[in-house]
């Protein structure tokens, strides 16, 4: 584990708006981010509509950790580390489903959907009946929050509440989670999750989606043939031509997004901050959400 902060010197020059490319490739920085960012930030885990019934589960991840999002018999939501308390084996190797218990394939410890350890084979013979099973439930996230169907979690008991953490960014998350006709909420998850690996640092997508609005040239071929998400041309093409794109950052929590507006907005290549508090207070927050239309 990196102890020193020697790599910090001069990597980020807030005054000039410059970052060193070292932050994208340094393994020590990444290891420290896993410990200090991904264990503390509120992270998106899934959507309530993926687990509508008691016993439903959906396996997701937080940082590099596999986690189980599930609904217990009392219909309460939980997010657990997908790791047996005995030897650390994954207790669930499926993507989703419905189950009364998660049974570890190694020694058969089983856990109910509320995380309680409910079964230990050979309890007397192998463990001399001495395990305190009440203390060996699945490791649960410190805090869980749902917001308009979306499910979020953090490992940090001292993290601010989810809405406080969101701060002013909430209205941009609403752009994603509210209905197109303006009604609040109403999103649901379709079946199937496209999963693939992009061999790059996690900060590249965040930077690409919310910090860089002028790379359209790299996917110009998409626009040239009109092969947007609908398959027959980008539905937002007209808006894009009319629009001004705006980069927005929220210094207090480190959130950032890009939005498209029909109104001409005073923009430059520098992000727009809704408040003028010091950018220097910005710490490693969650990845930017691409809230653009």
């Amino acid at each position, binding site marked *: 584990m990196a102890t020193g902060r020697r790599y910090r010197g001069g990597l980020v020059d807030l005054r000039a708006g410059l970052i060193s490319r070292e932050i994208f490739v340094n393994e020590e920085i990444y290891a420290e981010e896993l410990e200090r960012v991904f264990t503390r930030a509120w992270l998106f885990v899934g959507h309530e509509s993926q687990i509508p019934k008691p016993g439903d589960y959906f396996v997701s991840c937080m940082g590099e950790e596999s986690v189980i999002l599930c609904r217990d018999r009392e219909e309460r939501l939980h997010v657990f580390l997908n790791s047996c308390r005995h030897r650390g084996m994954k207790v669930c190797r499926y993507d989703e489903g419905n189950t009364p218990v998660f049974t570890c394939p190694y020694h058969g410890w089983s856990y109910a959907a509320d995380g309680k350890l409910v079964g230990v084979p050979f309890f007397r013979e192998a463990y001399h009946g001495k395990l305190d099973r009440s203390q060996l439930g699945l490791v649960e996230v410190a805090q869980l929050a749902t917001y308009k169907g979306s499910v979020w979690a953090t490992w940090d008991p001292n993290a601010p509440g989810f809405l406080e953490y969101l701060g002013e960014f909430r209205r941009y998350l609403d752009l994603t989670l509210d209905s197109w006709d303006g009604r609040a909420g109403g999103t649901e998850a379709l*079946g*199937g999750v496209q999963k*693939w690996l992009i061999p790059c640092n996690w900060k590249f997508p965040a930077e690409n989606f919310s910090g860089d609005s002028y790379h359209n040239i*790299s996917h110009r071929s998409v626009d040239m043939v009109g092969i947007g998400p609908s398959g027959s041309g980008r539905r937002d093409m007209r808006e894009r031509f009319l629009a001004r794109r705006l980069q927005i950052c929220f210094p207090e929590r480190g959130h950032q997004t890009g939005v498209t507006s029909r109104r001409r907005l005073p923009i430059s290549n520098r992000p727009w901050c809704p408040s003028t508090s010091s950018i220097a207070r910005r710490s490693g927050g969650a990845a930017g959400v691409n809230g653009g239309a």
Partner: protein
Amino acid sequence: MTDHRDDLAHLLLQQKIENFLYWEAELLDERRYEEWLALLAEDVRYWMPMRRNVKFGELEREFTREGQDVNWFDEGKETLTRRVQQILTGVHWAEEPLSRICHMVSNVQILDVKPSASAPSEVTVKSRFLIYRNRVETETDILVGKREDVLHRVDGQWKIRRRKIVLDQNVLQVKNLTFFF
């Protein structure tokens, strides 16, 4: 005599269908995309579901559903045509410079033929694919799976009317899907 004639018809059909699939692979690998598009019926359905890890006994939930769930591909000729056009812009950076691709097609099994092998107008054929793809300097992908095609004969020409592609992967092991199966 009838049995012999029937066997012969099946043999000839097997040969013709195999040749068709090999010719299709040839067109793709030689980057003759527009000629490849001409092998697709106007109402072609090109579907590649995703495969979930599911519990034994719940295998009916393994595949995402056509037209209802999110899939790797679930598209018709218009989108396929645009994907070809996109490659032909010369600025489709996932395929520029063009990948070097080799489609190996094998295990060709005719599952159904209508109305008969001697006068076929529709064939359901299953095959295996092994696609080798190499691009730029050292990027190499190998994709293996199955295809189930419905071929129709239109004016003496076989056309692909439906293709189901089953890739034997859960998390996609390539960074894009800008080529054709």
